[in-house]
């Protein structure tokens, strides 16, 4: 079993402009971002199965993790 990480918008550039990556569960969102080469600081919002979570969330099997950057601010 795996989990899915789906970066939005400009964050795709960190995973070769692919729409998503399959990852192994058991690591935090932050660790997984670093594994994928996505700088955690540029990610404003993390949702897991459509609920907002922190980057310290431990990814579970089957999770869909969405990563959203702030493009231009408030």
């Amino acid at each position: 079993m795996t989990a899915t990480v789906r970066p939005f918008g400009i964050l795709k550039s960190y995973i070769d402009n692919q729409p998503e990556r399959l990852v192994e569960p058991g690591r935090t969102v932050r660790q997984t971002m670093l594994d994928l080469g996505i700088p955690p600081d540029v990610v404003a919002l993390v949702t897991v199965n459509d609920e907002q979570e922190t980057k310290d969330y431990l990814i579970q099997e089957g999770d869909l993790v969405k990563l959203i950057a702030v493009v231009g601010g408030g």
Partner: protein
Amino acid sequence: MNGYGGSILRVNLTTGQITKQPTPPEVARDYIGGRGFGAYFLFKEVPKNAEPLGPENKLIISTGPLSGLMVPGAGKCDWTTKSPLTGGYASASMGGHFTAELKYAGIDSIILEGVSPKPVYLFIDDDKVQLLDATNLWGKGAFELEVDFKHKYGEEYQVAVIGPGGENMVLYACVNHDYGRQAGRGGVGAVMGSKKLKAIVLHGTKSVPVADLAGYRKAGMELYKACKDAEGLAEWTRYGTTIVTSWCDEVGALPTRNFQAGSFEGGKGIYGQTMRKEIVITDKGCFGCPCPCGKYSNMKRYNTQVEGPEYETIGLFGSNLGIGDIQAVAESNRLCDDLGIDTISAGVCIGWAMEAYEKGILTKADTDGLELKFGNIEATFAVVKKIAYREGKLGALLADGVKRASQKLGKGSEKFAIEVKGMEQSSYATHNATAMLLAYMTCDVGAHHNRSWAITYDLQVGRDKVVPEKVARVIWLQNFRPMFDVLGACRLQWVELGINRDLYVPLLEAITGLHRTWEDLEAVGNRIWNITRMYWVREIEGFGRAWDMPSRRFYEEPPKTGVTAGQITKYEDVIRLLDMYYEQRGWNTNGLPTADTLEKLGIASLVA
């Protein structure tokens, strides 16, 4: 004129005279609308050294060519005046549904002049325009009065109103509309109050001419489709601006205890997900918005409801006051809205007062007995009310803004007054984010975030780096982002959803019949930026570099806690930032636009 209502409505509150004139085509060509109209009319019509709360000052309310049309978020209008808070330029952007009705009444700008001898409200129903007696309405809260007007005239009438804060001329009083949208910053509500104008009630039914109807429909639908198809639409709609609360906490940008730090140990209590779970009832959008960022909230503990809070209010009435309780933050938001004071400035003023109290500079003799410590929720509510009514020593002190308050109190409190040009800093701690710090330092109204939001660029490039690329980024954002306030549409579709801004180009052309690229629009933005800079130069004797300096806290006091603990921008880097900024802007070393720059921009004669 395609894309325009076609007229400028001029209301002299001293004489009661109401006149309309055609919108000057050359002004529409050169300044387009919204904030551009405001800057032009302010500079041209308000005499030098006008008293901000006197009859010579004017309040200019302007739509843009996109306002009220089939454009995502085309519900923005600009409120420009000489600021009673700063003494310089003020421009506040308001969402909701007011601007669409204004446009449908055939009006591009309302110019309010003079001072009424008694409280009045302005009633507009297409070509019927009247000043009506508001003596019995004076003293009412914003929510109650908006409800009253809706009952009296009907739901289709849009209402903009001041609360007691505006009546009492709190220098950062706001204008309220749509039960939760504000023209918030710079004291536009105080100017309205000084004119004894309690409210504007309006309704319009006219068509807006467009140059190419088929092209307009096509380009409009494409822009809406891009929004609907955008990744992140569901998430942004779900959380709105509160998305950034946890992120700011994580990167050390969440103002905490009067900006003493950028991370808050109680942050989770005010994060977007906490708010969504605990208090949000439903979403609320402005005119034509496909991604409604507003949230209606129910505060069970207080048995009250409010639209909000937005991120800025969460930061400044939450972490900035040491309060990690979203219901309390939302209740503070409700009080500020109903009383008609800007949550950003109020939050900064109260944070400053709490720090002064904890340092022993303010005592209970100064606070009317309030235990004004960080985290005291009930004291916070009490201070908000005192400010709105200028009640007691504390209310009178804080109602004039943090700069004046700290100058009056002295005893070193000026050092932790968080402001630029006299305007309280909005909700981003900038101890170690040099581009964002520069954005605040050089913002045209004072320390506000919406012109240039550069903090992600700091994180991408290196937050303490001081390089020309950062300065260029700040300037580009300052020229570009406010153009949404000129066009009369919301920027958040670009900001949040990442919509390709080029989609606006054919839409604007189809509406106005004029082809303008974004480079053309940024040139207009640059022209407006320089006009407003010259307004400061004209109004403030000795205006220059010193007015662009940030709060000393950001270059003298590194945070002791949080992720930015020990980090700070060096004083010499603050100076370097300004040196580079002035050079790139074509200004002299004191921050004044050169004659050559003004000539190149085509505004030398206007600002002469």
